[in-house]
């Protein structure tokens, strides 16, 4: 097996007396979608903050492409290709949708102190493509702050993609979304990253999403790993079920994503009769 793109080894983070993350291990292969799940307080958010540089590890290592990044500043880590899309919608409220994505594109190429317009025109095509992929090109001129929640998350995704990340961290991307929006975003995640060869690490509460789109799943509880494997494997582990007492894990739920939508669909998700409909995966 080749070196995993993102690795976390024996990572711990202690706040005063509280061990938020305890000897965490994570190994994400390039090009995969890897989910991290766990009940509230399991340490998922802290783990993400450690990876993106918001927190400094108390001990342990974080490796991106073999390079240690533990303790570096967020914008340094972002420059290395590891980008997070925030759990709380965090956009440029007064900028237009187009401009927001443009900022993301420019910032990555470190050409933001450019005063001439030429470079900006060159990027415009790329931005338009991104907006199309994510399904919001009809909103290009609208002010970001005025968009619906679902559209804003799509915008966030477009902005993140504009930075041409190697690894994309998604912290609860479907939080607060209707079922229709959720399926759209999930499909967008899959299609956008497949076509761009991005690795995704996401944390989620929506079990359906997890089991539909993930290649591998890591289950956290009280700061450490209690299970790791493919969605099928993890789902049947008794410890996992115990930890999720009363939660959404229930039998086989399937939602086919069918032909990938380019526009927002309104209306409920349609469970397809064929329960094993998956979209193309590079590996099993």
């Amino acid at each position, binding site marked *: 097996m080749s070196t995993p793109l993102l690795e976390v080894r024996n990572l711990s983070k202690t706040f005063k007396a509280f061990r938020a993350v305890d000897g965490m291990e994570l190994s994400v292969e390039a090009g995969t979608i890897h989910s991290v799940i766990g009940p509230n307080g399991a340490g998922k958010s802290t783990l993400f903050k450690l990876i993106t540089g918001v927190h400094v590890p108390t001990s342990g290592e974080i490796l991106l492409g073999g390079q240690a990044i533990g303790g570096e500043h967020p914008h340094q880590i972002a420059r290395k290709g590891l980008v997070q899309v925030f759990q709380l919608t965090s956009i*440029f409220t007064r900028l237009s949708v187009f401009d927001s994505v443009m900022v993301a594109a420019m910032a990555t190429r470190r050409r933001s102190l450019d005063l001439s317009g030429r470079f900006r025109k060159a990027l415009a095509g790329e931005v338009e493509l991104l907006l199309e992929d994510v399904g919001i090109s009809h909103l290009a001129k609208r002010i970001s702050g005025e968009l619906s929640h679902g559209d804003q998350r799509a915008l966030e995704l477009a902005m993140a993609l504009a930075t041409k990340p190697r690894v994309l961290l998604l912290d609860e991307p479907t939080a607060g979304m209707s079922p229709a929006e959720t399926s759209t975003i999930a499909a967008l995640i899959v299609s956008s990253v497949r076509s761009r060869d991005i690795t995704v690490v996401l944390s989620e509460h929506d079990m359906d999403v997890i089991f539909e789109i993930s290649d591998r799943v890591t289950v956290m509880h009280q700061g450490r790993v209690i299970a790791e494997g493919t969605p099928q494997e993890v789902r049947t582990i008794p410890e996992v079920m115990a930890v999720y007492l009363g939660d959404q894990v229930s039998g086989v739920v399937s939602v086919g994503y069918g032909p990938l939508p380019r526009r927002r669909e309104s209306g409920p998700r349609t469970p397809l009769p064929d329960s094993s409909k998956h979209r193309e995966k590079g590996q099993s």
Partner: protein
Amino acid sequence: MKSGKKHLLDEEFTDGAQGATKVPAVDNTPKRTMTKPLLLLGCVVAAMLLGAMLPVSYSLELEYAISLTVFAVATNLLLGFGGLVSFGQGIFYGIGAYTIALGWMHHSLSFWEAMAVAPIAGAAASVLMGLVALRTRRLYFALLTLAFSQLAYVIVEEQYGFTSGANGIFGALVPDWLASPRNSFFFVLAISVVSLLIMAKIVSSPYGLVLRSIRDNRERAEALGVNVFRHQLVAMAISGFFCAVAGTMFVIYSQSSYPDLFLWTSSGIPVFMVVIGGMYTFLGPALGAIVYELAHHFLIAHTQDWQLVLGVVLLVIVLFRPDGLAGTFDFVRSRKLRRSNSKTEAN
């Protein structure tokens, strides 16, 4: 950020927390439509005609008002476009004025040399202030700019020998040909238009866009890899540059310079102009400057209570209509646009 509490010292605190600020539905950065440039050209032509035809006392007043538009727009570079609340732009205005005045007083700089040096001095001083103040968060930044204002005032006032202190500097500070009101009017108009054009170019450039993104969401910009500090420092340099230019025009208009220009209250005036005119548009502050100065001029002539009027108007605007005049126009226009947008979307 972690707790849900809205805290005055939180960076995430955006203006109009009580919902008073209305975000227009459509992007309003300088557009490429034809109507706006024509309208502006019309304004410039109108100004030229007025300058040529008005009696001198009026044209002088208009000249001063026009020079103030540069001051206001330059201040707004920090305020509306950069999200930096500065009560210190009077410092650079004063530096611009004093460069010419001191150059004349000590016979060390010719007028043109001083005109060239002044903006650079303003930019340099602004960068210095930025290096110190930009590392602090919003509230402390504002208070630090207040402190810097007083510092500048104290320096100028106390170094009597060098600056002639509280008396100020008066005299034939500009070349003879420029002392004539007609000539000075067109000179000031020319400089103002050029300055505004340059600043417009900067605001609509990629740099301007990134600056605005920092204003909207500093953390997100930083997370994207933007060097926030550097961008804000550049904004300070540009603002300081053009505030100093405005200061030189003050000397051209008044042939004088005095320490009061540095007071924090003097720095409050361009901020006031920005708020009247609207801080989220480029020319809003220019409108605010003209409205302010003409109102000021009129009021001074008819009453001793202009401070009272100023205070009341400012209070009302700040508390109830923070988007200013330009914001009102925009609101009306965006409602029309929203209606037509929804019509097309429904089809």
